[in-house]
């Protein structure tokens, strides 16, 4: 673990070791997938949700999804209408919630993303945080 007493060389060495581990893990995942094994893919993005509990307690939490939760279903929330139950990519919802642009490939595969606003994306993630959905880290 890096600390204040590490020299820049030691720090670089630690980084290189971590990079090597990541490369090995990526290679193992790639090999497993090519063999038809099921592999949980990591989910890009995060969002800091703010909400109040039923007792009025203010909550704030950085929300990230567990590996494998690359898609989510739009929950039953006010104002969602026909969107409810549809599948959307999690990374796109994180991007929308943070006011970022959604990837073209995601819109091509999930056209209904175009109908989800920034506020709605934030509401989806906050709702999952409130109910303690299993997809949250």
């Amino acid at each position, binding site marked *: 673990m890096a600390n204040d007493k590490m020299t820049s060389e030691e720090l670089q060495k630690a980084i290189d070791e971590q990079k090597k581990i990541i490369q090995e893990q990526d290679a193992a995942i790639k090999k497993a997938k090519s063999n038809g094994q099921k592999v949980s893919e990591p989910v890009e993005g995060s969002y800091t949700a703010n909400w109040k509990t039923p007792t009025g307690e203010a909550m704030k939490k950085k929300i990230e999804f567990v590996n*494998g939760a690359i898609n989510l279903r739009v929950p039953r929330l006010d104002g969602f209408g026909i969107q409810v139950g*549809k599948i959307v990519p999690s990374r796109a919802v994180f991007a929308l919630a943070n006011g970022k642009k959604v990837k073209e490939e995601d819109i091509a595969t999930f056209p209904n993303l175009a109908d989800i606003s920034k506020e709605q994306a934030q509401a989806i993630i906050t709702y999952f945080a409130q109910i303690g959905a*299993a997809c949250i880290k």
Partner: protein
Amino acid sequence: MSVTIAGTADSLNRHAVTYKSTIQQDLRQELEFENFLNPVACDNTYSAPNVTFSEVIQPYQWQFTQKGGSTFDAVENKLQKIKIDILLTGDDLEKFWDSWMVEWHEIGKDVGSWTFPRFIYNQAVIPKLIEEMNSNAWSGVYAAPTPGTPGASSSSVNGYAKVIADAVTNSDITPINTGAFVSTTMVDQIETWCDALPEPYRDLPGDILISSTHARAYERDYRAKFGPGNSVINPNNELRVDATNKTLRPVAAMEGSSRIIFVPRNIQNMIWGTRRGYSTYPVIRWEVDERSVKGMAEFYRFYGFEHWGHVFINDQT
């Protein structure tokens, strides 16, 4: 009365043949998943096409403007070969006949021929088969056995819990989140889950598979909120989810799990498989061998789905 090992094996085999259909029917009726869900047969792997389009309709223009990205895939359910090897030693049989049988009386029955096989089948073999097959259908996780050593019953086949968990890991199924079930909010959680089904499936009639414990929690929460305990005669013993065309179906084998699964009534999707040309349920052959009787049977199973797009589950395991 003279009872021999050879005679015991013979009478067990005669019982197995004579009552084959009854034994098979008993098994089918008592197996929770297999009684309720659709069976299919295959030789090795049951493969069902899994084709989806993202969106196909668009406003008219004369040019060809490609739309509706398609995904061609298949859901493959591979059969596992399962076996039963039972050993009844001569000592066991001697104890049975000399010590315990003397207490039995069955008027009008040929005791030497039939009581022991019927006892073995009805009181011992069939109940144990039902218990294990029920449990394995949900919580089984296949593991190849060590050569020469009997593997665990739960390692004989992948049950629905494992199949679903793998599909979620592989992003084949996207759960509808309920969060952890709370006994005082069960009705609200189940109704919210039903309301969050995609529109084409939301009002479809069907069953929601759920553990018996959670089903009871739902009934009690319903009773507390809308039932007789609230000065309203509104029992909900059939565990309906109001205004959704759905009812909860408690499954004892799912005990300990918080998973719920919607099974639409008019779509064959959640299936179990057996091998074409082979007996659906185990048929035990009894053979005499060195002061003992061996019972052996082989059968095939998979538990799975036809189309991931028709599988609706919650996020809890």
